[in-house]
């Protein structure tokens, strides 16, 4: 039968000749192969110090965005929490007080906004659901930690740094 994949190999059971039985030439070949690898550049990296380049659509840690005037975009509508298949997001809304117009863009804002990074599956549905373009998964890999409670990220870790005046 004709081969479809061109990957077929003839099985060959001919007995080993003397050189093959003597091990040593084969061991020499093996040593040469490992020696070649010895001089190769390692394929792994020293991770926290060196980082690999992410692809353009990489989804990492969330960040809550500010607008061009440095006000928080989030209006605590809860659509992200609703869209989240892992139920990782929770928030408490609050009303903007007079004098806080430079802090929050909308009249309602999220007083508490928490994402449980152990639940999050980094699917990006919150990003798609957000009507205010307030949340993006454009950060780094979420760092490791020792305690479960330390993986619940609040606004202190999520909100973008304020604009420099």
């Amino acid at each position, binding site marked *: 039968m004709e081969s479809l994949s061109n990957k077929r190999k003839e099985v060959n059971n001919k007995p080993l000749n003397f050189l093959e039985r003597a*091990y040593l030439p084969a061991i020499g070949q093996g*040593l040469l192969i490992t*020696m070649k*690898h*010895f001089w*190769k*550049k*390692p*394929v*792994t990296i020293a991770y926290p110090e060196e980082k690999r380049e992410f692809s353009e659509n990489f989804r990492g840690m969330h960040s809550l965005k500010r607008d061009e005037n440095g006000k928080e975009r989030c209006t605590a509508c809860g659509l992200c929490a609703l869209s989240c298949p892992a139920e990782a997001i929770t928030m408490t809304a609050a009303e903007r007080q007079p004098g806080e117009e430079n802090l929050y863009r909308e009249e309602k804002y999220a007083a508490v906004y928490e994402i449980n990074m152990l639940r999050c599956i980094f699917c990006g549905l919150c990003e798609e659901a957000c009507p205010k373009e307030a949340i993006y998964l454009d950060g780094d890999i979420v760092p490791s930690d020792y305690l479960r409670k330390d993986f619940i990220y609040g606004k202190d870790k999520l909100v973008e740094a304020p604009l420099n005046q």
Partner: protein
Amino acid sequence: MELADIIVKFILVVIIFAISLVVAMYSTYAERKLAAFFQDRVGPNRAGPWGILQPLADGGKMFLKEEIIPTNASGFLFIVGPSLAIMTACIGSAVIPWGQKLVIGAHVIDLQVADINVGILYIFGVVSLGVYGIMIGGWASNNKYSLLGAIRAASQNISYEISMGLSIIALLLVTGTLSLREIAEQQHGWHWNVLYQPVGFILFLICAFAETNRSPFDLPECETELVGGYHTEYSSMKLGFYLFAEYINMFISSAVMVTLYWGAYNYPFMDTVAASVGPNAAVILGVVLMFAKIFLFIFFFMWVRWTIPRFRYDQLMDLGWKTLIPLAIANIVVTGIVITLINR
């Protein structure tokens, strides 16, 4: 023997002891680092720059771990095992000549702890004692895997000691002496024994791998079959001693191979060098070169470990009894005939 000589010998013993321990310590680091390079990895790099403090961290961990002696283990022998292993590993270095004699003023310093006239026999005695450490430890653990590992180690060492001894006999036909100092002196310049005994050297090398329980002959600690082998039940520094003894053994057997076959501290044009930079500087250069050769052998041990898979047990025995011993005997016969023809 004068007091000064005793003090000098004592200092020499301490230095050699310290060197073999430090070399063994850094062999663990080198092994992990080289394994990484052979496998295209980075290797340990957290403790200190490039991870050079890693052996200290490992040692500290070993000391701080909980000491466990199984209830049904034989308590005394359980402790004797690793002690014997590390002790026999350390005393092997006593007869190895590390360099020619240094002359400082009126004093002549011999860079060898004990120049006994049966140096090779002493080495063989120490090597065959080494297996007791493993056997006692494996037996005292009262664990079938430990016992199997110990039995394997014992039968493997006994089988390979025969061909090792036979390959040495061919060398003794060439050198005519058992003293390691005299064998080293005979290889002056480039008259290295490996040029006269290439087959003997390869046999000795293979047997050295088997005697030190290194891959591809590391069946005594074959994890896939025996959990951990003879040290399954060991923890903390007693386990550390077993692992450490393996690395010291590797260092000592590299030193023995260099002394017997690769010209010890001799190097080509050593007389010219001695004439131009003075005798003591030439001696020190010889010591440095001897250590360079030893490190090359340790590198080779590790290179082989990360290249070749482990032998199956029957293949191991076949190789030892059906290939190496006949080859070694043939080597003796051929060497004997050639020496007779030359000396006629």
